[in-house]
Structure formats: C-alpha cells, structure tokens
C-alpha cells in the first residue's frame, strides 16, 4: 500500500514536472518538509492559493474599470509572478510574464487575453496539485500516522 502510494505520488510529481506545471522549486519545498512540518508544502500551496485569489481579483478589477493603469497592472502581475515562482508554478509564471509584456506595450487586448491564460493555468495547476496532495499527503499520513486536518 505504502509502496503503491509512493509510486503514485512519485509518478504524479514527475508528470507535473515534465509537463512544466511545476519546476525544481517545488521539489525544494518538498525537501524542506520534515517530520516537524509534514504538511509544509501543502501549507505553502494553500498560502499561494489565497494570494493568487487576491491577485486575480485585483487584476480583474483593474482590467475592467475604466482606463487601464498599466503600471498598476504590471505591478500586480509582478507580485503574482513572484508568488508563483516561489512554489515553482512555471506555467502560471510564464503567463504572468506574457501579461507584463503586454502591459509594457500598453496593449490592453493582449493583457486581457493573456490574463485569461493566467487564470486557466492557475486553475489547472490547482486541480493537479489537489490530486497530487491527495496521494502524497495520504502517504505521509499513512507513514507518519499523522492525521491531516
């Protein structure tokens, strides 16, 4: 059972990396995890979700309301990008960079389109991570006899 879960977790992780959803940074986070902080990665990812929701909301508002403040948009996206890179969300990060380029070019349409891409990648990542955690955390729980809350 344990082996199976381990293999599954490993497989999922590998797949996420290969498909570019996550990068080495995510692995580093997992390495930081220890017995004292068995849910560390999940905790961090949850923080990321909270941050992201906030950023996405703000950017959405900024895009909708009146004349576009590209500087502000760029700034928001810069922060979002930083947050994404801290957990290794490569694809999301790439979309953020794209968005920033459109900001620099003051291309509102480009921004809006790219923003859709950002949201999409974010949603996909979230789904995949949740599936991943299902396996890896249960594995941890299983191994460490921890109860996950």
């Amino acid at each position, binding site marked *: 059972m344990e082996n199976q879960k381990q293999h599954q977790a490993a497989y999922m992780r590998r797949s996420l990396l290969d498909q570019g959803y996550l990068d080495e*940074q995510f692995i*580093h986070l997992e390495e*930081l995890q220890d017995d004292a902080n068995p849910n560390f990665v999940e905790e*961090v990812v949850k923080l990321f979700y909270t941050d992201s929701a906030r950023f996405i909301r703000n950017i959405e508002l900024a895009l909708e309301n009146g004349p576009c403040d590209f500087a502000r948009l760029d700034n928001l996206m810069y*922060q979002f990008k930083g947050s994404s890179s*801290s957990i*290794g969300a490569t694809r999301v990060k790439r979309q953020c960079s794209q968005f920033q380029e459109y900001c620099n070019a003051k291309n509102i349409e480009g921004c809006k389109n790219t923003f859709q891409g950002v949201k999409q990648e974010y949603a996909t990542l979230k789904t995949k991570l949740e599936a991943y955690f299902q396996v890896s955390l249960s594995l941890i729980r299983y191994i460490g006899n921890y109860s996950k809350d």
Partner: protein
Amino acid sequence: MNIGTVPSSTGSWKSGDVVSDQFPVGLRVLVVDDDPTCLRILEKMLRNCHYEVTKCNRAEIALSLLRENKNGFDIVISDVHMPDMDGFKLLEHIGLEMDLPVIMMSADDSKDVVMKGVTHGAYDYLIKPVRIEALKNIWQHVVRKKKHEWKDNNFDQSGSVEEGDRQQKPSEDADYSSSANEGNWKNSKKRKEEEEDAEDRDDQSTLKKPRVVWSVELHQQFVQAVHQLGIDKAVPKKILELMNVSGLTRENVASHLQKYRLYLRRLSGVSQHQNGLNNSFMGRPDPTFGTISSLNGLDLQAIAAAGQIPAQSLATLQAAALGRSATKSAIAMPLVDQRNLFSFENSKLIFPEGQQLNNSNKQIDLLHGIPTTMEPKQLANLHQPSQTFVGMNMQVNSTTQHNNSLLRRMSQSQPRAQMLNGANNGSQVSRLPLSMQQSLSSEGIPGAVLAQSGIVDNARGSVYNPVSQGSSMVDFSVNQSKELQSYNFSLGSNSSGMSSLTNRGMLQQEVNSDIKGSRGFPSNYDIFNELHQPKSQNWGLQNVGSTYDASHHPSIQGTQGVSSQLLLQRGISSTHNSGQNRNAPIGKPMYSNGEETGHSNPMGGQQLNSVGGNMLAVKAERFPDADYQNTIFPEQFGQDDLMSAFLKQQGSVGPVETEFGFDGYTLDNLPV
C-alpha cells in the same frame, strides 16, 4: 583576545573575533517580505538552517521590531518590492539606525536593481525564488561585518584617538539615527556603528580598542603625509611615521587609507550621478544670494557639522555670514545638529565613500601637479593642508586631462581658492576647486580648491578669514564671480547641476536633488560631467557623494544637498550643515557652486567644515560661505578630496557643495 561574554543566545556574538562554537546556529534573522507564500518558505528554509527566525510582512513592523530590540537581531533579509516601504529605504534605515547587515531579495534580477542594492549598502542580493543554499551562508555577512568593525576599532591606545568618540558612540548612534544623515552613510556608518556597538556591548573584551576618530586635524595630517609620500607610495607604515601621532596604529592608518582611496576613486569615478544630483543639489541658483554670507552660514554649519567648530563658533560665524544674508542663519542652525553626525561619521563616512574613489591616486597626483596658479600669498593663507591642496589643485590642472579643464579653471580661480582655503578648512577648498573648476571653466579656481584643502584649519573658526585674505581671490572671484556666478548659477540654479557636480563624486546624489533650489546648474552640470569623465578627477567626493547621496538626500534642500553630500562623505552631518547652508544661502548661484564644490571637496578631504567655507571663497561673494562650507567638509576628505571634489565641480562652483558628496554621503541623509 577574548570577546567577552556573548549575550543571550548562543548564536549571537557581538564583538569581533570570538564566535560561538555553535555559530551560525541560532543566528537571529529577521526576514521581511510582503508575500505570505515567500515569507513562509523563507522562514522554513531559515529554520532548516538552524537560525532563529522572526518574520514580518511589513517594513514598518520590521523597523519597530528592530528598534525595540536593538541587539535582538544579527541580520535582516528583506524583499525589495514592498507596498508600504521600498526595500531600499528600509535598507537605509537599518543601516543607519541599527547598523545590521541587510540582504536584499527580489525576483527582479536586472542589473539596475542589483546595483541599487549595492550602492545602498546591501550585503548581498538574492534572486527569487531563493534557495536554501543561498541562505545557508548568510552568516558570513555577520562575521565579516563584525570583523570589519572590530578591526576599525582597533586602536591600541587612546593617543590621538578620541576615546571620547567611542564612548560617545552609543549616543552617537542614537543621534545618528535621528539625524538626517542616516541615509548616506549607511554603509560606512553601519560598519562603524556596528563596530562601536560591538565595542560598547563588549565591555568585557580584554582588548577593547577605542575607535580612532579621524578628526579634521588628524585627517589633514594624514592627507599631508600621503601627499608627501605620493599617493602611490603612501603605505600605512610610512604614513604613520610621518604623521607621528601617538596612539595611532598602522592598522588605523591602513583602514583610513583604504577609505580615503575609495573616496578619491569615487570622486573621480562618479560621474553618472552628477547631473542628476547636481541639479537637485544646487537647487538654489539664487544669484543674488551669492553672498558669501550665505555660504558662511552653510560653511559654518558644515564646519560645525564636521564637529570641528563648536556650536558657538558656528553661531558666530554664522552671524557673520548672516550679515550678508539673513537666511543663512536659519540654515546654519540646522546644520549644527549635523555636526555631531559629521564629526563622528565623517571619518566613517568619508572612508567608505573613499572606497569608491579609485582615482584617489590620480587625484592626489593631480593636486600635486597642479600648476600653482594660486598666488603664493594666497597659498600662504591656506593652512598647510590647504597648501597641499592647492598644490594639488595646481597639479590637477596640469596633470589630468580631465582635471585640466578643471584645473584651468581652478588655476584661474586661484584667488578664489585662496579664499576658499581660508574659509574652509582646506578640505573645503579642495572641494571648491573642483566645483569651481567645473563651474568656472575659465575661472580656474585652483586656488579655491587649494584653499579648501588647506583651509581646514582656517575654516574652523575663521571662516571668514579667507574671505578677507582672499582679497586677491576676491578680485579674482569678482572676475570669476561672474563666471562663477554663471556657473554657480547654473549650478545653483539647477541645484541639480550642483548635484551633478557633487554627485560626480561627491556625495549625495540625492543631495543634489534635494537642492531643490535647482540651482540651474546646467553649465555646471556639463562641466561636472566632463569632469567626471576623467574619473580620476573625481575627487572622490563627488563620486562618493553622488552615488551615495542620491538616495539619501531628500532632506537637503537645494544646494544644501550638495553640501550635505559632501558632508555625507564626511560624516554626513557636515554635509547636512553645509548642505543646509547651501540651500539657504545658496540661492546665489555662486554660492551654490562654491558651496557645492566646497562641500564636496571638503567632504572628501577634510571635514566638511571648510567645505562650506571654501565654497564661498571661491565665489568671491560666496567666499565666506564657501569657505565655510568647505571647511566643514574638508575635514573628512582632506585636501585631496577637496581637490577632486573641486575639480569635479569645476563646472559649478556653486554646486560644489553638493559635489562634496565627498563621501558620497549625500546630504540627504541629513535629518530631515
């Protein structure tokens, strides 16, 4: 030597050389980042490194945490982009107030930002996402800093070293943080502060080395010795011998020399900032203002700042200066406060700045090689140091290409320099020349420059003397004045122009900006730029100032900024004063130039004292002021610095002050 007990946690070690066995375990880290995700990750990583971590997501909170627990942290890691406060600003604050090593982080790895981190004194710059490997070694910065400070404090006996300073350190720190100067010194101050803090904390240390306080006189002696030996051949041992100061160790001299060199290098090397800085610095192109009195006020302050001039004298001087313009007095006052900062900081500041100066050698050479356009009697007026400076100025003209233009100017403005010298402590003079040169293309203020450097002593209390003496100068200045005026004006008017001058090497770029008066140094600006080109020419002050000041001089209002810059180098305080003086009185273009230059020069070289004064001297009208201002600065930088500063400033006499930025400690730091 045993450090003595290490307070509290095992991870923390205070003074110098003893490190806990468990070090770096328990290293107390404060991490600041507004991104919760990043913050959590960093915290975990740092914990994994066995550090004691405190996290906070607001810069203000971080600062209050640090203030409440002055010795509660060993190192700070901060993000660059934060909503409530710019990371660099936080960096400055910490450097000034707590003198802790700060590591910056950012996802932005563009060269500009990284450079900004460097110039603001960050101990390291990490690119996000940060890896644990990068964090594992941050303890080295703590060790390095402590070692550095400990070494600086290394002083065998009291001797010439001012013990008092050390003891005052703690209080000084307090003053320091409160003063505006904070910003500029940061680096140097940080180190010094830390040194002192370490010293203070570590009373049990068996080998408590009082910090050597490089007073104006001491620095002048140092500069003289260096000149005598020739900058290339000036080795600490020989310098020590020449100086013949009891209680001074070779190490003291060595570290001072290093700083001085950097300062000179910076003066010559800093050209980029000039324009921006000078303008802001000069800010007050008030041609009418050009009265020396204004300078005097400033100078006085600068001098006072340098710590050389007691408040009373300063007041007196100011009063005298004020005779010309009422505004000065106002300015003078604020500067006085700076004094403390400067005197202490000067040594500290100057040197750090000096580091940047790579042209120190050149500058010195320049000075020596400067054809003496200055009249002998003028030179005579100058104190010894100033003479050196004068000589330097002269040389500058002849030797350096860059400086040539400056020198030419300088030589032309010899009389001015004289005045400056008299007024300034000589150090100021040096500043002047630069600024003068810059501003006075034709003026040839070499004299002024010289005056500055040499005047260090003069400046002190007799800021006005030069003025009177500088009759020749005055004449010159009269002639020049119009040139200077124009220059000054340009410098002053642009304030930025001044700043540019100062920036060049001087201090604070910010100062220039502060100089709000925007003296309109357009011409200076160019000059400075030109001047800066040579780099070597940069009296270091300029460079120093410029780089430094830029960030710090918000407080400097206009020309003052310039001075402040110079001061910064010196010890910010002086700059502040001078800067201040400058601003107010600087209204006159001339003034600004002189001041600026003066400042810058003095800053670099000797106490800023003369800076203020020197500057004035240059300007004929300004003389009194210039000198004054110059004097303030010169202390720190010594003549060489002044020279360079001056040379740099050649373009703008007025702005010279800003140029002072000798150390590059922009006046901005002056307490706002």
